[in-house]
């Protein structure tokens, strides 16, 4: 478990997590990039934000 950079909630991790993978925060939904593992470091991955159409 690490804290979400966006909202501060716990972000659930999983086994065999690898650097470079993208996961989302279950609370605020933000897309996070795994920077390092052991200990896990996350950063937001804003460029992944899909456009929603308008």
């Amino acid at each position: 478990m690490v804290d979400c950079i966006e909202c501060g909630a716990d972000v659930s991790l999983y086994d065999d997590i690898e650097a470079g993978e993208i996961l989302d925060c279950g609370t605020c939904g933000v897309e996070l990039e795994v920077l390092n593992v052991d200990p896990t470091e996350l950063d937001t991955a804003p460029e992944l934000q899909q456009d929603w159409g308008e």
Partner: protein
Amino acid sequence: MTYTATVVGANGFTGGELCRLLVGHPNFDLVQATSRSNENRTLGHAHPNLRDIDLRFSSPDDLKSVDTLFAATPHGVSMSDIDRFQDAADTVVDLSADFRLPAESFYDDYYDGHSCPELLESAVYALPELNREKLSGAAFIAAGGCNATATILGLLPLVENGVLDGDEQVVVDVKVGSSEGGASGGEAASHPERSGVVRPYAPAGHRHEAEISAFLGLDVAFSVHAVDMVRGASATCHVFPEEPVSKADLWQDYRGTYDEEPFVDLVAGGGGVYRYPEPKSVAGTNRAEIGFELDPESERIVVLSAIDNMMKGSAGQAVHAANIALGIDEKTGLTQRGLHPVGAP
């Protein structure tokens, strides 16, 4: 422990929803459901989702003696029949506006006065997120209005954490489904006229302003629009705080208020299709989705709140409050999960 229960007004929309909840609740035994127009007919006659329930509507004139009575009647009925309701049951939960407001003056200002003001003080406003302590052991409970509930849940963290203290400008723009009008809608509620609308049915002067003022201490500018769905109320609150706030602050405030709340989910931003609160995500459930977005330009917080008006906005809130009042685990009977995909429930 099992409590016997009566639903008055069971033929209507929130009355039917109460029946749905009570027949699935392990601690309640629905023994009476009243309807004048469908007396002696089965519950399934009015509510196709209750076809398997072996109970017939009876007259509201003959109230059985029960542990708990839920009244889901139009404005004015509880006011005049409250004595009979209290005679018939130890705990009375009223879904109408008749005992929601804490003082007669509200009824003078927003309604046509009150015929039984002496009981106003004894009624506890049902919203557990606001009133959990007072609800414990309460014998007389008044469930909130659906638009007010959506708004109060959205703004409560800002009030609790001092972002709002009553002087700020707050605009609340609500969108609601057609079930809010009850089962007896007139011409404007007919399918051809009501389909596809964005209809400003109360652009100004909506009565729910009274509740928000009474329970949050905020005088909000309130407008309600009918949109094309059946269930659901969605409040967009445009808030202009005196001091700038950061997203991190807001997350802390909202998580602080709601982290332990069993029926409030924070939903804000992120990816995928469902990024913010949406009524269809909570339809059929007792959950509220609450989120926010920050607009740096205008120093505005946009708070988003979505509930099912039949559930968190009335019948679910009523059962939730009754659970607390009676000492039952508060989630009991209210853990229905929403659907995905789902259209316009």
